[in-house]
């Protein structure tokens, strides 16, 4: 028996699912007649929104916490993909301008979080590791901006090598401390 909160969320998700599906169907039927690219983008974006509502409902209905979390993540990812397609449908040029920021967003967030944590956390080694991590994510951001050239691939490879090295050094430091104690 679902709680009142679950029932309200399920009802609103189901309503959205019906609405988005209806709009997607209407867009598809017009696209089939006109074959205009912007209609296809809009259909796909509303279809993804409808799909995200399906996963939203599933994340509430499924009892397993892990599977529910997976569905919940899928919900937001599909919605994000849909919003990006809406930008594409309005203007492909604008979408090209927005794309790097969409791709950069996770790395920018990780860079900011690692930098903040390096200020807040105590311990010289941990701070150094967090600073290195934030630098790695910053490098990844630059690599995305340079992906059209060889420099992008070089920056991405350097960032990954730096990340592995920083993690290895940090792990080695901890191992040395544990071994030293024994």
């Amino acid at each position: 028996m679902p709680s009142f909160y679950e029932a309200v969320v399920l009802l609103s998700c189901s309503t959205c699912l019906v609405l988005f599906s209806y709009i997607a169907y209407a867009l598809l039927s017009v696209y089939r007649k006109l074959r205009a690219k912007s209609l296809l983008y809009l259909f796909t974006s509303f279809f993804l929104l409808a799909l995200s509502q399906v996963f939203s409902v599933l994340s509430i209905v499924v009892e397993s916490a892990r599977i529910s979390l997976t569905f919940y993540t899928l919900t937001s990812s599909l919605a994000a993909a849909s919003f990006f397609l809406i930008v594409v449908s309005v203007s492909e040029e604008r979408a090209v301008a927005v794309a790097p920021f969409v791709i950069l967003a996770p790395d920018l967030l990780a860079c900011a979080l690692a930098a903040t944590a390096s200020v807040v956390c105590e311990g010289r080694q941990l701070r150094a590791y967090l600073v290195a991590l934030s630098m790695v994510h910053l490098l990844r951001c630059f690599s995305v901006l340079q992906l059209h050239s060889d420099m992008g691939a070089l920056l991405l490879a350097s960032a990954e090598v730096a990340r592995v090295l920083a993690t290895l050094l940090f792990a080695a430091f901890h191992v040395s401390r544990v071994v030293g104690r024994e």
Partner: protein
Amino acid sequence: MLAVSRAKKRSRLQIIMEVLEALDHHGELHATDLSLIVKLSYDRLRSVLEDLDKKGLTDVERLEDERRSLVIRLTSEGRRLLEELRRLRRILEDYGLA
């Protein structure tokens, strides 16, 4: 997206919408008049009209006068599609996308 905008480059969908609206408003139009109304070069308009004619949305008649001009009308299928497009435009406007 479906809104008429003269300053920006129009999408193919916007052009089609404007052609269908003009034909619906005037009943029938000569190709040259239609190109003036929708502000489109004659060559570009012809490719759009050929496409619409192929899909059965418009009816193109070649007059037997000395200019052999084209007269274009909306078919019932074209009128139905225009209604669907208007309905979609209203929905998309509610989402701030039109």
